[in-house]
Each structure stands twice: as structure tokens, then as C-alpha cells.
């Protein structure tokens, strides 16, 4: 049963190696004249102000978290969807109940303003 996975296992490294070869070709073919102005950080042509670190908003964490919750929900729903043809109506409604509970979570997040781009 591992037979189909071999192609994927071959394509993934090839997807890394082929662009890698191209980038190495670029390093070999391009000029190498580093000077401090070129390698300094780009900030619209002026000198960098302050450290290269910014405090990020907490909103990014909330988006990532809501994505995580819906991702896990989808992982539960995929087997349900695969078995869909063999299910009876009440089993489909159980899956619908699952979805509705999480939709309620989305509504909660909406009402609490967690979905605003601050």
C-alpha cells in the first residue's frame, strides 16, 4: 500500500533540488561584489532606524488560532465526508451538528470583535 507514496517521496526532494540547482547556478553566474551599502538592510534608501525587531499584534495569534480550530474541525469532517455515501440521514445530521457547534464559535468570535483587523 505504500506504492502510491513513492512518487510523492520522489517529487518533494526534486521540488527542492531543482530550484536549488537554479539558485546555485545564479550564485555561480552572477557577480560577487559585496560592499557595505549593498548588504545593509533596505529601508527605502535611508539608514535603518532602531532595531530590527517589531512587536507584533496579538491579532495574528487569534487568526492563527481560529485557523487551527477550523483545521482540526476539517480533519474530523473529512472521514465523515468520505463515508458520506454509506451514511444514513441521521448520521449526516450528526455531522451537521458538529459543524453548527463550530459555527456558533465563529459567531461568538464575531460578536466579541475578535475578527476585526485592529
Amino acid at each position: 500500500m505504500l506504492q502510491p507514496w513513492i512518487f510523492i517521496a520522489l517529487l518533494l526532494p526534486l521540488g527542492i533540488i531543482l530550484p536549488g540547482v537554479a539558485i546555485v547556478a545564479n550564485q555561480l553566474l552572477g557577480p560577487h561584489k559585496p560592499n557595505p551599502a549593498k548588504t545593509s538592510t533596505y529601508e527605502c534608501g535611508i539608514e535603518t532606524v532602531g532595531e530590527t525587531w517589531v512587536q507584533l499584534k496579538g491579532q495574528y495569534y487569534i487568526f492563527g488560532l481560529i485557523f487551527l480550530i477550523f483545521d482540526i474541525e476539517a480533519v474530523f469532517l473529512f472521514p465523515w465526508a468520505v463515508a458520506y455515501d454509506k451514511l444514513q440521514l441521521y448520521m449526516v445530521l450528526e455531522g451537521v451538528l458538529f459543524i453548527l457547534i463550530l459555527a456558533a464559535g465563529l459567531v461568538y468570535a464575531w460578536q466579541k470583535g475578535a475578527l476585526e483587523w485592529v
Partner: protein
Amino acid sequence: MTILQLVFLATAAVTLVAALMVVVSPRMVHAALWLILALAGVAVLFVLLEAGFLGIVQVAVYIDAIAILIIVTVMLTQRAMGEGGRQVNRSWLWAALAAIVLFGGLLLMLSQAPGSATVATPLAADAEATVEDLGRALVDVDRYVLPFEVASVLLLAALIGAIVVARPSTEARREGRQP
């Protein structure tokens, strides 16, 4: 030594080395990246065990969601890009010896457990039917429908809890304070 065993050994080695580097890396961002490699190794192990669905679920949930969330959380803290200093203290050799002795003891005890010397017989199931069987089991009234629905309530609780914890306080939002 079949090809499968070689692939398993290589994957296991990569996973263990990555897991060690997670703990030892002085920079938090690097530790997060080694964690991603370790999780990918576990996904490959799932696939080798002919549980393709679980391997892909591992990638979809752990690497796509949780690893990104970990990196976001690491970046939210201060001094994330800086060096954390030496992560290994002076008596690491004694700690390593103690861990190896403990491992040896556990191995000894487990090898003397009944039935540990036999090789488990592989399950004779078709992979396609397995995902479908899982789906049917999740909604079957005699089997797992209650954990299925309770899992959704658990996810709802996690969502509500995280929003309550991570939202900026009402004063901060009223002042329009934007970090």
C-alpha cells in the same frame, strides 16, 4: 535489512536529531524550525506504518497550523531573534548518563514483558476502506458519535478560551492603542 527498514531508520534518526536540536538551540526561532523538521519526520513515520491519512493529518494540523502558531507566539515575545545563551549547563554529561541508564532499565523491563518478543502481524485492511470505516465509526451511534460531538464542544471551548485570553483589554481598544 529491507528498504523499508532503512527508510525507517533514516527517518527515525532525523526525527531524534531534530528533537534534540529543539532543546539545545540557543535561538528560539531555530528551535521552532527544528521542531517542524521533527514533526515532518513523525509524519513520514505515520506513512511508513501505512496510515497515510494520519500522516497527512499530522502535516495539516501540526506543521500547517500549530508550527505557524508557535512561530507567531515566539515572535510575539521580546528578544525572540536574539541569542538565548547556552542551553546546556555544566553537568550535562551526568544528566546524559542518568538518562541512558534509565533508558537501559526501561528497555530491560519491557523486553521481559510477556509477548514482547513476537512480531505483531500486520493488519489485513485496505487503506481506502480504513478512512471510510473511520468516517462511519465517527457517526455510528454504537461507537464514536459521542466523542465526535464532544470533540466539537472541546474545540468550541478552546476557541472561546483563547479569545477571552488573547483579546486586547477593553481599555486598550477604547484608546485605540495599536501595538
